[in-house]
């Protein structure tokens, strides 16, 4: 298994290089170094010297991919691409265009993201599975059909409405919790209740429906019929037989997102003012801060690949028949 993980990690390198190339190409067509300098320096008294100075200070005074002036290997290394992306592999993200150290920012912003995303994720899974199991109990009855219709209805509501609605009702009209904000020190739960609630409710439709399908697929297998014939209670069948067997498909869908929880949620964070990585990304897109976007893309890709590996590993745990090699 160790060898497998090492191989998968090595396989990640070309992917990350590809990711870097793509983001680079995209962003430099959009934003030439001169543009970046101009937008970072503000609107007043921007002289060509100031722009040159900014480019030199931030390392954008080299050619993009190939340096024709340099000889040998230097023609590839003395470029913006090499200088800016190779350091990413050492997790040295450098400084944002406005001069902040990105590694520090990421390290501090990660935790608020996790503080929201993890409870949302766990509570969400719990609620979805419970709801799905309940619905499965009533499969092929009227209750089941209405529940499915309700799920589809919940799925059809835009995420924005859940957030706006939650803020408007719970925080503005009923004054139950602060409408936005985050505090690590004093009463953090106060700020987390609403984002987690909104996240969970917004996820019920799609989540519960998906689990229902998974459980139903298992619920009509022969072994379930056998168990029922033996006289097992429905509850026992569900929890002892159906749930463990549905674990593999559940893991496929669930484990892959666990590492990405660190990235947080773009919308939730920006609406609720949570200083996490999601709002960090949004701000970076809006201010076209290339250094941050590049780093976040890189981190996102790593977490995604990590998720894939974790999924594979979790299979061996859930199903002893699976071997990784």
């Amino acid at each position, binding site marked *: 298994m160790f060898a497998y993980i090492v191989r998968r990690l090595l396989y990640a390198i070309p992917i990350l290089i590809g990711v870097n190339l793509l983001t680079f190409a995209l962003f430099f067509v959009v934003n030439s170094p001169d543009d970046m300098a101009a937008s970072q320096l503000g609107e007043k008294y921007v002289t060509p010297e100031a722009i040159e100075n900014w480019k030199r200070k931030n390392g954008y005074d080299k050619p993009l991919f190939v340096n024709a002036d340099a000889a040998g290997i230097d023609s590839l290394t003395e470029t913006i691409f090499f200088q800016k992306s190779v350091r990413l592999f050492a997790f040295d993200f450098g400084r944002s265009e406005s001069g902040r150290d990105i590694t520090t920012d990421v390290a501090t912003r990660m935790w608020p993201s996790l503080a929201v995303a993890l409870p949302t994720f766990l509570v969400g899974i719990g609620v979805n599975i419970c709801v799905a199991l309940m619905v499965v109990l009533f499969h092929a009855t009227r209750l089941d059909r209405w529940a499915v219709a309700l799920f589809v209805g919940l799925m059809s509501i835009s995420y924005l409405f859940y957030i706006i609605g939650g803020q408007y009702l719970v925080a503005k009209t009923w004054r139950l919790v602060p409408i936005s904000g985050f505090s690590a020190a004093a009463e953090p739960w106060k700020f987390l209740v609403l984002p987690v609630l909104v996240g969970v409710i917004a996820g019920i439709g799609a989540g519960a429906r998906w689990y229902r399908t998974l459980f139903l697929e298992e619920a009509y297998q022969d072994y379930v019929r056998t168990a029922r014939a033996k006289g097992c*209670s429905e509850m026992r069948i569900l929890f002892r037989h159906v749930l463990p067997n549905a674990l593999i498909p559940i893991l496929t869908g669930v484990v892959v997102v666990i590492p990405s929880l660190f990235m947080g949620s773009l919308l939730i964070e920006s609406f*609720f003012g949570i200083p996490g990585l999601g709002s960090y990304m949004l701000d970076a897109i809006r201010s076209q801060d290339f250094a941050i976007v590049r780093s976040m893309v890189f981190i996102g890709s790593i977490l995604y690949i990590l998720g894939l590996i974790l999924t594979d590993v979790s299979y061996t745990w859930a199903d002893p028949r699976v071997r990784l090699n």
Partner: protein
Amino acid sequence: MSKFATSLLLLLLPWLTACGEKPWNNPHPPGSAGENVYQTMMASTPPKHLDPAISYAADESVFLMQIYDPPMAYHFLKRPYELIPGSLAAFPLIEVLDSNGQVLPAGADEIAFTRYTLTLRDDLRYQPHPAFALNAQGEPLYLFESAAEGAAYRQLPDFPETDSRLVLASDYAYAIRRLADPEIGSPMLALMGQYIVGMQELTETLKSAPRQGWLDLAAYELRGVEVLDEHQLSITINGTYPQFVYWLAMHFFSPIPPEADRFYHNPGFLERNLTLDWWPVGSGPYMMTVNDPNSAIVLERNPNYREDYFPTEGAPGDRERGFLADAGERLPMIDKAVFTMEKGLLSLWTKFLQGYYDRSGETRGNTGGFFDQAFVVSPDGLEMSPEIADKGIAMTPDVKPGTYYYGFNMRDPVLGGYTEERRKLRRALQIAFNTEEYLNVFYKGNAIVGHMPIPPGIPGFVEGESGINPYTHEWIDGEARRRSTEEARQLLAEAGYPNGRDKETGEPLRIYMDVQSQAISKAQMTWIERNFDAIGVQVEFRASDWNRTREKYLTGNTQIFSLGWLADYPDPENFLFLLYGPESPLECDCDGANNANYNRPEYNALFRQVKVMPPGPERDAVVAQMVDLYREDAVWLYNFYPLDVYLNHAWVYNSKRHGISKGTLKYLRLDPSQREQSQRAWNQPEAWPMYAGAALFVGLLLPGVISYRRRLYATAKEG
């Protein structure tokens, strides 16, 4: 049935217990409402730069101007704006010199230099800061050889030892040298390089200076800045520049202790954002104790702040409005100010209405869609719905020394040019654009229609009948009234476009507006289209992002362009230069501000005169001539002056908006007990939805459980 009774009881519970309860939705730490702590919000983008040499944004000045103490300052209450000494003991001594550096008598002609001699107060001390901490040998305590040594310190508050010292004249000189350092990249470099003697040379020298960690700038010569003794220095500038003294009221010229600069150049500090750009060191009324750009910035009272008192006189009417109640009181008046990051409009306004923010408008004075959705300003003041009118929210507006405008490109083949026909064409468009209505709809009345490039509060601005633009407005019944659409049509016909169609070919007149896509909404575009449609003119918008727009402006590739200008100081010169011919990007081949490419020799000559004239009626007369030229040529489609607004709760005192200076936090006073009461009264939670939610959950679960049991039972019976 018993379950139903329980849930009914649960539903009633909140009403039995609710009254007088502590609010559940307080976003601030418990118990903080009763403290002398000012709670406000900051703009959705945190400050990028807090280095006084680099920062050049209003959002950042809000912090810098509390922390730093520039030589000059503005009087808090008086209008028009009045300069007063800040950290200086008196106004600077101004002498004119000839080319040999000899002092000339007043009124002399051959002025080569002007010398400003600044005398400091002797009670200026820096805030406590680790950079000043010394060890037993009298050497700086926190000076490290390697990054590993200082690795334990991640934030500024991590340093246990702090100290302070007197502010010296050499610190001001050091700050000016920093402006010249190309490595720092101050926006002042280009402008001040022209004026301060020897600054350009210093910049050249510093370009090739060896840089290993900290560079002691004091070792490099700057000819124009001379430290006379501990409390005196002189600054010499080329020629005359009467507006220079205004620059002394900006944070660029506030003192910087070299120790702090050296401290921040410790190895490894940059990587942890321990920089002067992030942790300012000043001698102003407040110091920064928390700088978490993601959530909050906290300023606390600087214990070493100089003696400073609330002004005893103000503008007419200030006494009646209670602005002089604290006259003679020692400043600052509040202990701490918390600026919380707030991104969503709904949450921002909700928290303000719930009383959790004391005042709004600290950054981005509410205009430009920040949250001006929430209220309307009528000519009589703030207009609020009855639901929130009794909360005692008050508003103080002040005109920003700036203007937003849409200008014509005077070089455009269709709309540009100086012939009478083209002037009429532009005037027709000016009349058709109903600025009054535009401001009511999109700025909720938070702005003033412009009749000239100079905003109110600045010398040269004329109010009333004589101040209107006679080409677009008439004075009727004591107010300026926009000329009618018929007149616009008439002018259009005279210009060769009857009903908006070319009189030769019948081709419809189509005008192009170059706008920045983020700065305009669809609603605004359709509104503008409708306005011009009334005189038969078609509009086409060419929206693009700021970089692209800027490119178009620099190459003169526009027809009608949109821009805004915020002045640095209250002087007409800072506005009139927007129309000065040589300032056109096409003339100077630079980032010039005259994007209209207006170039009229008479105007240019008058501008050169105004630039060096001392303030007074003579200068105002020349300014009036220039304004007349501007009106005659109809250079801008429209312009308006945005209002900066503070909205404050009843427990906030001395909340008078200052259009230019941001350093007004020290005057603010709070009544924390009133705040605590109001917060409690306004935020009683409505708990029934919680119980209703629980009841709903049980209600959904119950039939499920019941029918499941029934089903289970049925199977067993049959099987």
